[in-house]
């Protein structure tokens, strides 16, 4: 692959703006209970932040940021978080994915379900972010250009 020379303005602006995009992604994930948002949208915004670094920089820089071999394992981890929450609820006596059986003491049943929804959204966001980055790496990675 031929070496890309990015303009210093693009480098600077992308480095400046990426943390704020990530912060906004986390806001969208964790504010999904009270406004428009949730795991899918927040995961897509996080993936946008990672992909911005990937578009601008060379492989030796973005491999430090998010290793391209981490995409598939992180996606599997997201699916396993989702499945594990449901499985814990099933082991503790409820139905599969019945969050009111999660072992959280001191909360009402509705609050336990709210927390279960939050954990699920984190798993979804994890999987969506990792899979989108993995798709980009596989389709447009350094050897494929």
């Amino acid at each position, binding site marked *: 692959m031929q070496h890309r020379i990015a303009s210093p303005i693009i480098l600077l602006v992308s480095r400046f703006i990426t943390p704020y995009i990530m912060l906004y992604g986390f806001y969208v994930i964790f504010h*999904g209970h009270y406004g428009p948002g949730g795991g899918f949208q927040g995961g897509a915004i996080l993936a946008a932040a990672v992909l911005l670094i990937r578009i601008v920089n060379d492989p030796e820089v973005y491999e430090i940021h998010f290793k391209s071999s981490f995409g598939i394992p992180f996606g599997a981890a997201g699916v396993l978080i989702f499945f594990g929450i449901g499985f814990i609820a099933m082991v503790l006596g409820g139905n599969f994915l019945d969050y009111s059986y999660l072992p959280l003491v001191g909360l009402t049943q509705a609050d336990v*379900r709210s927390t279960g929804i939050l954990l699920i959204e984190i798993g979804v966001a994890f999987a969506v972010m990792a899979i989108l980055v993995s798709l980009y790496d596989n389709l447009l990675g350094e050897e494929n250009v």
Partner: protein
Amino acid sequence: MKYFNYLIIIAFGAMLIYASLGLPQRGPASEVASQETSIAGTVLPSAYYIKNAYRDANTPNMVTVVLADYRSIDTLGEEVVIFTAGLICYMLLWRKRKNAA
């Protein structure tokens, strides 16, 4: 062959326009999907979701509750679909990446 393709598209458009004449109007509360019970007398799921989502999960956003609580198996299957798509993409292209490296 080209005219046949145009014919397919025109027939498709005519079919869609004809079908849209039978669709319900957009918006009025008398529409079937906005009712509380269906024609058969059972409670429609969207009415149940609107009434009970906040009480059941203490979460104001009904879309989140429907997505992650009432229809969580649906979401789990859909996340597995995303993961499978990423895995397929990786398995289709990793051998070439290794050869090129």
